[in-house]
């Protein structure tokens, strides 16, 4: 266990306060202390693998998405500024898309890392700007920022083909090997990624502060039930528990604001990073976001310091020894992993590495163009000729041209919930059984744009006899109305129904049972 408490020089240099430095000295140490870029190498591999997943799919549609032979949707058009970027022919775009896929692969393995990452940055940014509909999203932007930092960092110094080819310290890539073998570099690109992620969260919090509907949970509720992303089973369930959503909203915004201030402190860092991982993982099952969390997790790897990676390796070594008899110990011995020694071939490969790289690029681009030509994305070379337009029936076409000037009354109400307790104005204990003496809260969530509506809450007994009626003139900006019905006094135990009417027409109803309670029944 002695190894577990071993402190490295990297630890000592990171602890700014103990060094009694001036403010400038602390800033200098913050950006310019030197470490082995393990975190950046991991971020490089994870981010490029994620982008590779997205771009391999888009490669087959490259002609359609990014070329003049397709339907380019430049982001600048959405900003009302016309087409900013040059648009290329189908063949050129397919060649560049193939190059992008290759550059992502070479970035993952770390072959000509800086050139590869620069190519990825330029090409991915270009394609994303060309396709504002289906390539450019905020995760693309975040990925571009991280790629920029990776391209100017020395993330190819470890765990890369470049490192293997350079004969200097190919045995020194593992954290527990002697420090004289490790190649250190200034950490400022890594620190900029860390700051960048904190600033993104701060900006996201600013957006939420601008959005009043965020704090009522409405924004998140409607997002959770939207079907434009992937499947989100937990979101479908949570949408019926808006009280939980409101609590999550408050936790999320507090975490987003605090992130950048806590992530550079000793105890704050693991806490906010753990919350971040939880938050982004939750967006997968609640909102159907798959790529966004992976991009953020890749960025999170930049928070790994040299000392963290060393600690992880010490743990793995400890576990290997501890459970040597249980598992195959060699399976955990990653520090022994190395690319094969090709003997006399390796210096030759290293010498011609750039030439090989250029040749690989040219071959990949040509092969990509040939493959796409063979795939014939528009089906122009089919024996039966180009595709025909899909005809639709008159009935179907007529349906598209129905124009209604008003929304149905039942569509103005999103949900009706009965309960007795609220958090932030939201009913949190939905139920269908009450006891005499309870105050039943009938909460109506309206779906904007509902306009100004006359809302009625009608209480009926089991036989449908009207017992009580309340109404509320709801202005267009009000999306939540709660009627309070005191079940004490004249209301006997039995079955009841609450009916919500909008502009005189029934929109929703809920049945409930009232059990006898301690409250005196006044006849």
């Amino acid at each position, binding site marked *: 266990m002695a190894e577990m408490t071993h402190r490295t020089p990297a630890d000592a240099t990171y602890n700014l306060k103990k060094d009694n430095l001036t403010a400038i000295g602390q800033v200098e140490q913050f950006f310019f202390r030197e470490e082995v870029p393990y975190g950046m190498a991991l971020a490089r591999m994870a981010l490029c693998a994620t982008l590779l997943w997205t771009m391999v799919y888009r490669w087959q549609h490259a002609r359609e998405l990014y070329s003049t032979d397709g339907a380019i949707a430049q982001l600048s058009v959405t900003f009302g500024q016309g087409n900013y970027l040059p648009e290329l022919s189908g063949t050129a775009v397919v060649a560049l898309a193939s190059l992008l896929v290759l550059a992502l692969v070479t970035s993952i393995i770390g072959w000509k890392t800086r050139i590869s990452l620069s190519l990825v940055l330029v090409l991915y940014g270009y394609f994303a700007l060309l396709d504002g509909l289906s390539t450019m999203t905020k995760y693309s932007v975040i990925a571009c920022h991280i790629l920029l930092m990776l391209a100017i960092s020395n993330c190819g110094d470890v765990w890369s083909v470049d490192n293997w080819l350079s004969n200097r310290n190919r045995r020194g890539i593992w954290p527990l090997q002697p420090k004289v073998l490790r190649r250190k570099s200034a950490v400022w690109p890594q620190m900029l990624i860390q700051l960048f992620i904190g600033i993104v969260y701060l900006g996201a919090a*600013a957006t939420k502060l601008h959005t009043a509907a965020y704090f009522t949970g409405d924004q998140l509720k409607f997002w959770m039930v939207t079907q434009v992303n992937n499947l989100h089973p937990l979101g479908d369930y949570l949408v019926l528990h808006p009280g939980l959503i409101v609590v999550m909203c408050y936790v999320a915004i507090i975490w987003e604001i605090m992130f950048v201030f806590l992530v550079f402190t000793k105890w704050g860092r693991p806490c906010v990073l753990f919350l971040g991982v939880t938050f982004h993982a939750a967006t997968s099952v609640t909102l159907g976001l798959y790529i966004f969390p992976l991009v953020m997790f890749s960025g999170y790897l930049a928070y790994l310091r040299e000392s963290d990676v060393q600690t992880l390796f010490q743990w793995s070594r400890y576990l290997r020894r501890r459970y040597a008899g249980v598992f195959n110990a060699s399976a955990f011995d990653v520090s022994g992993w190395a690319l094969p020694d090709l003997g006399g071939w390796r210096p030759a490969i290293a010498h011609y590495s750039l030439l090989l790289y250029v040749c690989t690029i040219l071959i990949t681009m040509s092969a990509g163009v040939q493959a796409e030509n063979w795939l014939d994305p528009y089906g122009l070379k089919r024996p039966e000729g180009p595709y025909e337009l899909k005809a639709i029936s008159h009935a179907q076409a007529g349906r598209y041209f129905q124009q209604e000037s008003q929304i149905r009354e039942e569509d103005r109400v999103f949900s009706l919930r009965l309960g007795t307790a609220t958090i932030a104005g939201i009913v949190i204990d939905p139920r269908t059984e009450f006891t005499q003496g309870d105050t039943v809260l009938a909460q109506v969530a309206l779906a904007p744009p509902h*306009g100004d509506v006359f809302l009625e809450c009608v209480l009926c007994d089991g036989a449908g006899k009207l017992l009580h009626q309340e109404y509320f003139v709801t202005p267009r900006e009000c999306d939540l109305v709660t009627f309070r019905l005191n079940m004490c006094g004249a209301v006997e135990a039995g079955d009841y129904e609450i009916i919500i009417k909008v502009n005189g027409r029934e929109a929703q109803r809920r049945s409930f049972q009232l059990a006898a309670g301690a409250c005196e029944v006044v006849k």
Partner: protein
Amino acid sequence: MQKRAPAIAFIALYLGVLGWGIVAHTFSIGVNSHVGMYFIVWDMFCGWSAYEQRNHLIAEGQSGQFYDVSSPPWGDVHPYGPRERIHYDTYASHAPRVVQNVLKHTVHEPIVKVYYVEELWSKKFNIPDQYWEANYQETKNRHSYFNTRLTMTNDAQNVVAYQNWFNKMQYNSYMDNPKLQQMAQNCRQFFRPMSVFDPNVIMNANTIPAGGVDTSPIVPVNYEVSRP
């Protein structure tokens, strides 16, 4: 220090740009002034409405036959899930090029006109059946609203834009107020230029076919006439 000067300059510039993004976004200063702002403004949470939207591109042939142009016959792109690419064109900015591309690569009769139609329904109908049954006593009866957002000629040129459905509903709710209606009437000038942003354009447009039924032909009519 001299060796570090470029790095220091880069750090200062980069953090300055990110900082400007935060300030611009927080105080709403020129957030949409330039496409570059998209790279420094973090509005990942904007405008999720209570209605689910789908977009349809419908082409009208010379024979009166209608065609679906929104789904290319060679297969669609599904960028972020099961939805097709055209459904992410929220502002109807890119539809003309999508239309051009589909028409260019398919065989078809001469096309007279293409319509970009929004379809919307309340998102409560997206709730899975098992949760619906547990939380709603009503039968699940989804109703779609349709709104013609753009019309364009066969070459996807001469695009005429109309209000989106949300603005239209909002406008209708304002116009439910008779006092406001009267004031609008009083303020209206006798001579004025036609504007695509004016709701009157859609009301008077003689170009949008009215809803048809199975057997009756779809003929262009004045939308104002068809209003209830």
